């Protein structure tokens, strides 16, 4: 079966996508869950251990607190309270920490340090899997056993004000609530006023038991201007005042004889030096936890707060309120909180916590009895029993006290051991699904590689021996073999496995597909091997029979691609991947510069006697060409690579990304600060004009008008949102969401895309007009440019501008004039695309994804467009370059009719090699320290990019199809 190279490449990419999806499903473990779907109940609690007599009382100690106020300040960093600036930032809180009756800790949040997983962790006590980040945007109700549910069941009355994630996670749990949405990141006053406005009336009332406040303003300030901005201090002072207000209200309500209150100040995660969060750096992970209650001892001075896990708060609160600890909690109670209760109660609390942990351990581990913690807990429970016996007998000696202390210590050790064993359990992988996914991906990659000589030949068609493979005996044998392996694996493993849980039809399809691929692979390899040496001498990869001589540029392109793939193995190189791309791009520009110099200077110096002119460019130009034009063209061509280099250097300092140097000041921050708004406005206006000039030249007049109006709309949208200034506007304007302006731009984008599609269809169906077709293609491209300019932040417009400028210059003076072939051009486009991905401020960290893009022109969160827009703006760089590649190659059609096919094939190869290598690397490094914080986000980025490339290849496909149809 003969298929065209582009069809073949898209087919391979799509199936690789499926393979990687299977791999991802196996790689991201489902969060630890108890096998009982029910929730812990008060009546299920274990009896108090007592040796000798039958277990008598299931007595619970009295709750420690009557009322609890939880004040959660989003992105509150540990050093905002405990650091050197803490006294200035939060004076009252700091006084309470140093002199008041309080306990303070540094609570370590687990990565991903994103709000929703953190809220889940705080309420369920479990550590949510990484996959929760992906689900962050649509948070359905939390069905797991959690503290809020337990409190509601116990009849506690709860009030909530703050981030509406809580309202969505816990619908109908709160007696009273007011959720504020956190999506308009530029707003940092209104979100907090919405929370505080209810506070006075609520604090006066007596009809609630738990009050939860979630303040978002600090997080938004962090996202806008980082942790050292001037906005931080007023915001923290505001938070401090609120804490003071709550505290004094609680003190005044405090009645003699009743249980005391508890005031909790905590953060869900910290804030990195750039103000974002999501990763696992120290400032993102460390959050303060301050517990204030008259039940605690008064402090005498500042001591370094001890470190606890964030999930430890859950059992502590549960026990403090007299609630059962939620089933999946892996936290352990903070012993300091219990220190003022009687020894009996302390032991009982620890026993309850230990019992819950041991139950979870039993459920989640087949060989739980071998765990050290489990054994320690059994021993401690026995000792507790005998201590209780002595205690009930009325023994009150010092010996008993010491013995109790010893039991306490045993309990604490057991809790620590069990908790850490459970946390480790979270890193379990579904190896079978992962291996199955990997096998798919590698079979496809090998087929892709083996097809290289055919795909890059003049015909650009691949001969796939599908039918012979399907009819051969080995295919059926392989099917049987793989099916039996599948049955064997699935019946023998105890742990759950996604691939095994698939339906039989799907599994059989997968098995048949895999065996067919294997047969195709073998027959292609045998076809290649004996023939190869005969025709091409030593190199089996030699294309079209001619000898392969690699130029310096080819060596660089190959070495760069391979080197970049290999560099993914080091976590620092994954974090700093942008450096690699910038480095390679620079070298590429220098190599191109050398080529240009060689072309023009060699020609000049040795036009007569050279035995082999490097480029027959004299033949291309008619001799009538004026000499001056050739000369100016020469200098423009010579200036293009240095100009590109300068552009890249400037863009590089626009957005600092990565980890090690992310904190360095960059131009983007400078532009975004309020005093430089005029500069930003001028820059944005200049960029928009330049974008118009660069894009319009190949559009029809309708699109030109639409483009101009659209770009005007982009500017007014940015002005409405408050990023840039209108010249006639003064500072006293109100910022709106800019919905009208953004929708205005959307109309023009759709219009341009429509004209483009219409032109394409007309050129395809009615007239076989190549000019009309390239215009249509360019119009689609310009629609994309307009959309991207709407989505990009104002300070990122230079990135788009430089992208267009470099594309225009390179296409005009380098790629056309130097006669690079389709493969070389594709690789260069791909490198540029990758570099621009990082130029726009992206990194391999989830935190740099700008989700606020998903709300451009929308009143509220709508899932599908939000995800689409976010993905589009994140991958704008690679996408624009890939689209430009389509435009460029199809305009080169008269020179090489199969350029599109070659380009598509190369793109597929360039994407699948790193993706396939990366999944192997990730599998090998799955117990690496940074697997969750560094390698997994990169895995998500890689798979997303693969998906995107598959889409681009399909587009290529339609383009090529119409070419061949218009030819015939």
């Amino acid at each position, binding site marked *: 079966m003969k298929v065209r190279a582009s069809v073949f490449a898209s087919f391979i990419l799509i199936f690789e996508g499926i393979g990687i999806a299977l791999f991802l499903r196996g790689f991201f473990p489902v969060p630890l869950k108890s096998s009982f779907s029910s929730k812990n109940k008060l009546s299920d609690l274990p009896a108090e251990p007592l040796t000798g007599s039958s277990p008598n009382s299931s007595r619970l100690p009295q709750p420690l607190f009557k009322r609890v106020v939880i004040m959660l300040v989003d992105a509150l960093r540990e050093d905002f309270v405990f650091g050197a600036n803490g006294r200035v930032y939060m004076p009252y809180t700091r006084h309470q920490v140093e002199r008041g009756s309080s306990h303070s800790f540094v609570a370590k949040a687990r990565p991903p340090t994103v709000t929703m997983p953190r809220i889940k962790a705080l309420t369920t006590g479990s550590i949510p899997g990484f996959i929760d980040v992906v689900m962050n945007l649509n948070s359905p109700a939390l069905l797991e056993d959690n503290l809020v549910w337990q409190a509601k069941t116990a009849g506690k009355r709860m009030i909530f004000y703050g981030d509406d994630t809580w309202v969505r996670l816990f619908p109908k749990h709160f007696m009273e609530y007011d959720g504020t949405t956190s999506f308009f990141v530029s707003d940092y006053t209104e979100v907090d006023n919405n929370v505080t406005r209810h506070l006075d009336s609520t604090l006066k009332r007596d009809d609630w038991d738990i009050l939860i406040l979630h303040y978002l303003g600090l997080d938004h300030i962090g996202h806008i201007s980082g942790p050292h901005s001037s906005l931080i201090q007023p915001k923290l002072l505001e938070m401090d005042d609120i804490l003071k207000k709550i505290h004094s209200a609680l003190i005044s309500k405090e009645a003699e004889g009743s249980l005391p209150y508890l005031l909790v100040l905590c953060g869900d995660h910290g804030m990195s030096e750039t103000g974002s969060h999501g990763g696992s750096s120290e400032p993102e992970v460390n959050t303060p936890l301050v517990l204030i209650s008259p039940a605690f001892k008064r402090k005498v001075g500042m001591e370094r707060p001890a470190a606890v896990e964030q999930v430890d708060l859950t059992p502590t609160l549960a026990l403090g309120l007299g609630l059962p600890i939620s089933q999946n909690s892996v936290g352990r109670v903070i012993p300091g909180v219990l220190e003022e209760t009687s020894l009996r109660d302390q032991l009982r609390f620890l026993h309850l916590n230990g019992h819950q942990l041991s139950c979870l351990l039993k459920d989640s581990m087949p060989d739980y009895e071998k765990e050290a913690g489990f054994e320690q807990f059994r021993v401690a429970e026995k000792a507790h029993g005998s201590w209780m016996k002595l205690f009930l007998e009325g023994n009150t000696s010092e010996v008993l006290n010491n013995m109790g202390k010893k039991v306490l210590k045993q309990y604490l050790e057991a809790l620590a051991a069990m908790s850490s064993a459970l946390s480790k359990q979270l890193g379990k992988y579904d190896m079978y699904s992962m291996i199955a996914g990997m096998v798919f991906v590698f079979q496809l990659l090998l087929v892709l590689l083996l097809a290289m000589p055919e795909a890059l030949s003049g015909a650009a068609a691949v001969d796939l021996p599908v039918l012979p493979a399907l009819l051969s005996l080995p295919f059926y044998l392989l099917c049987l073999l793989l099916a039996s392996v599948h049955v064997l694996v699935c019946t023998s493993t105890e742990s759950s496995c996604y691939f095994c849980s698939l339906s039989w039809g799907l599994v059989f399809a997968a098995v048949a597909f895999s065996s067919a691929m294997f047969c195709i692979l073998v027959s292609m390899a045998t076809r290649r091997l004996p023939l190869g040496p005969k025709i091409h001498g030593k190199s089996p990869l030699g294309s079209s029979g001619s000898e392969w001589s690699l130029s310096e540029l080819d060596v660089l392109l190959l070495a760069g691609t391979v080197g970049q793939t290999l560099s993914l193995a*080091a*976590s620092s190189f994954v974090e700093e991947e942008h*450096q690699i791309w*910038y480095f390679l791009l620079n070298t590429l520009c220098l190599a191109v510069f050398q080529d240009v110099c*060689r072309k023009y200077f060699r020609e000049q110096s040795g036009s007569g006697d050279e035995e082999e002119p490097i480029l027959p460019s004299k033949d291309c130009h008619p001799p009538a060409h004026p000499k001056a034009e050739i000369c100016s063209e020469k200098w423009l061509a010579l200036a293009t690579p240095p100009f590109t280099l300068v552009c*890249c250097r400037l863009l590089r300092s626009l957005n600092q990304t990565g980890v090690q140097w992310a904190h360095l000041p960059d131009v983007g921050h400078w532009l975004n600060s309020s005093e430089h708004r005029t500069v930003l406005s001028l820059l944005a206006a200049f960029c928009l004009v330049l974008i118009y000039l660069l894009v319009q030249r190949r559009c029809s007049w309708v699109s030109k008008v639409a483009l101009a109006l659209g770009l005007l709309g982009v500017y007014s949208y940015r002005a409405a949102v408050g990023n840039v200034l209108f010249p006639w506007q003064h500072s006293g304007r109100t910022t709106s969401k800019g919905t009208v302006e953004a929708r205005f731009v959307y109309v023009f984008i759709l219009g341009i895309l429509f004209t483009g599609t219409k032109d394409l269809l007309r050129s395809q169906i009615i007239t076989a007009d190549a000019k009309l077709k390239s215009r249509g293609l360019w119009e689609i491209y310009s629609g994309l440019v307009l959309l991207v300019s709407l989505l990009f932040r104002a300070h990122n417009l230079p990135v788009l501008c430089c992208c267009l400028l470099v594309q225009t210059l390179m296409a005009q003076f380098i790629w056309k004039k130097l006669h690079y072939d389709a493969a070389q051009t594709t690789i260069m486009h791909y490198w540029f695309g990758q570099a621009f991905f990082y130029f726009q401020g992206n990194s391999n960290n989830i935190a740099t994804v700008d989700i606020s893009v998903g709300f451009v022109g929308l009143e509220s969160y709508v899932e599908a467009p939000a995800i689409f827009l976010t993905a589009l703006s994140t991958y704008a760089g690679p996408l624009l370059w890939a689209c430009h590649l389509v435009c460029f190659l199809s305009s080169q059609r008269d020179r090489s009719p199969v350029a599109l096919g070659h380009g598509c094939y190369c793109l597929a190869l360039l994407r699948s090699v790193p993706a396939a290598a990366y999944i192997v690397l990730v599998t090998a490094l799955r117990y690496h320290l940074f697997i969750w914080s560094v390698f997994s986000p990169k895995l998500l980025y890689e798979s997303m990019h693969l998906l995107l490339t598959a889409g681009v290849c399909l587009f290529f496909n339609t383009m090529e199809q119409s070419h061949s149809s218009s030819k015939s």
Partner: protein
Amino acid sequence: MWDHEIRAMASTHAIIAASVFMATVIPAALVPGFSVYGTHLLWLYSVSGAVTAVSLAVFWLLGITPPTKKHTVGFKLSRLFRSCLYFFLSCLFFHTVVVLYGAPLIESALETFSLAVLLTSLTTLRCLCVLGPNVQAWIRVFSRHGAMSVWDTCLQITVACTVVGAWVGAFPIPLDWDRPWQVWPVSCSLGAMIGFLTGLVAAPAWIHYHRKHLTYKCK
């Protein structure tokens, strides 16, 4: 005749390599607290100075520099002046390229410039010695099939090795190992140095093994 030239080349290279070695060892003995990492710039200048001086002396003694027709003092002076100018321009060129590669523009300008000086004294200086201040000849040598003598080939190999060495030397910088040699510009200058020394060894060896295939057109 070939063997003679190769032998001359090998001994020249041995002398230059020895000078690099001495420039590292002698200050270490004389200056207290001298080390390659710790006082990197000092090492860098001492090495580039030594290489400059020794190459100038050796190539002048060997008389490889193309003979000039005129022997007037004024011509010699202008030649000297042009060589100095090219040397300085080449420093600026390397500095610019390194900044384009991402070195900070203002912050560590001295370090960057020192690296540029080292690279110049390892590459451009040799060109000046072998080809003289003649840009046309440089372009000829560094384009494909442009070598016209054994020394041209040797120049190509050493320059390529040095530049590639400096290029490869930049790779360890982003790694988070916190080693003293990851500090800017230590790894790059070490890489350039190692590349240069490799080039010194590789050039005569490569020419020796390929002497059967090497053909040079006469001018």
